[in-house]
């Protein structure tokens, strides 16, 4: 359902900065259904990739074979991302706060980590430069704290309350946080994440209890339709027939 919901967020013809796992499933699904002209760019340098198999890593050789362009990473970050050519970027999150600030660096104190996570990768620059970002993460009380332990990628306001526009960030930031139970989106005025859409079978109260800040409800609250027959079949038969990422 997360992959389906993410796929629906993509528009035909867009240039998308793709990560491995669910983002990749979402992009491949979107391209196989409503967005055949989606251009997939991977931080490894593959542009317009058409992988013949589901890539297991962001640098899978299948991303290269038959792609439109392969360039060095300096070009990826300077000429594509920093120059504003990326319309949508995906981010994961170990923790995310009410402003959409994301932590993928460390649980606990930076100098004395309880759990050391992989770190930044390209996430901060995606969060700053992509015209909009889509965050994909499971709903979990520990993952949605009042305050993240470390801001790896910026959301709509920093710790001092300064907005991303005032900090000079070109992109719109995390416009959708897609969880396994519903979608959070920033309030148009405050930038604070509120519940914007609920997936079939999900309970609003459960969702609220899974978030450590008082979660507002958007009105009207969108009820997301279940994956269609076509979406499910495409996912299972075309995108991930080997069930590498699908459970």
């Amino acid at each position, binding site marked *: 359902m997360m992959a389906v919901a993410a796929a629906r967020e993509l528009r035909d013809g867009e240039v998308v900065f793709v990560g491995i796992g669910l983002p990749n499933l979402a992009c491949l699904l979107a391209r196989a259904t409503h967005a055949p002209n989606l251009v997939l760019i991977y931080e490894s340098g593959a542009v317009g990739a058409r992988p013949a198999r589901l890539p*297991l890593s962001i640098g899978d050789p299948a991303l290269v074979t038959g792609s439109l362009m392969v360039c060095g990473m300096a070009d990826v970050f300077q000429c594509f991302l920093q120059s504003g050519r990326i319309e949508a970027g995906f981010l994961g999150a170990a923790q995310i706060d009410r402003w959409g600030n994301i932590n993928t660096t460390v649980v606990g104190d930076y100098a004395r980590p309880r759990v050391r996570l992989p770190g930044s990768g390209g996430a901060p620059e995606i969060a700053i430069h992509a015209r909009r970002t889509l965050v994909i993460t499971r709903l979990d009380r520990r993952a949605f704290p009042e305050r993240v332990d470390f801001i790896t990628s910026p959301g709509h306001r920093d710790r001092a309350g300064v907005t991303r526009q005032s900090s000079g960030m070109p992109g719109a930031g995390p416009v959708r946080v897609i969880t396994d139970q519903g979608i959070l989106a920033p309030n148009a005025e405050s930038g604070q994440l509120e519940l914007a859409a609920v997936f079939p079978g999900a309970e609003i109260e459960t969702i609220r209890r899974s978030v450590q800040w008082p979660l507002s409800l958007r009105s009207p609250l969108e009820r997301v339709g279940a994956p269609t027959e076509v979406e499910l079949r495409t996912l299972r038969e075309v995108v991930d027939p080997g069930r590498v990422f699908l459970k």
Partner: protein
Amino acid sequence: MSKVMTMTDAIAAHVHDGDVLVIEGFTHLICFAAAHEIIRQGRRRLTLCRLTPDLVYDQMIAAGCASKLVFSWAGNPGAGSLHAFRRAVECDPPAIEIEEYSHFGMVARLSAGAARIPFWPLRDYQGTDLPAANARIRSVTCPYTGETLATVPALNPDVTIVHAQRADADGNAQVWGLLGTQKEAAFASKRVIVVAEELVDASVIRADPNRTLIPGVIVDAVVVEPWGAHPSFAQGYYDRDNEFYVAWDRIGRDPQSLQQYLDAWVHGIADRAEYVRRQPDLVARLAARPAMSGEVNYGY
């Protein structure tokens, strides 16, 4: 004059205790053969720099080669954690020092290094805790617009090891597929070792000069090492060994099994040739099928 030598000689001559070292390649063309030889020769107090430490530095950290890690994403790509890295930084006090950027920051550090200017400007890090965690992330004011831009300092390694699909005896190296930051790292470095899947005549290089990523004039040693990047991959030669990347999550999780791996596959063998000989299934599992580029005309 040929620069071709054995991996043993190249590492002995060019990688010293205390060096700042880059083994390049972004998932593609990561030279595990060089890393294993560095482990075998017992190098110590290295500062290891890569965007993604990957299994290659996880093994070197486990083997005790590193005192510091400079990086931007320390995971097992597509398969989980780097457990030796995590043990080294999660213990108190940490067993290794870390210096952390984002991918763009690391790319920019190497770009500055290659251009031999002391810093590189980028729009990044606003609203993040990275500059607080790393005092080497600073800022500069644009002399035209008055804007503040982030900066990172140049990275100029003592030695960079680049794996290439093919090179001539002088070190002119051609790479295709993912290019990572190989060019920048090589130009930034005081010494450069090129490791190639294939040694070719200069005429092969000269037939397609746009394919040359590293010119021989900046190369100190050339090592010919087929399958030298396994378990990473070499486009057109062999596939990524995803099974091994997945298996590493289990091997690395337990310090004892990791040590057994190093004993068996690094210390316990002489060189990459033996490493390949002892895995007779590599070719059947991973050898590349053809997907040819077509030719272009360089005539006039």
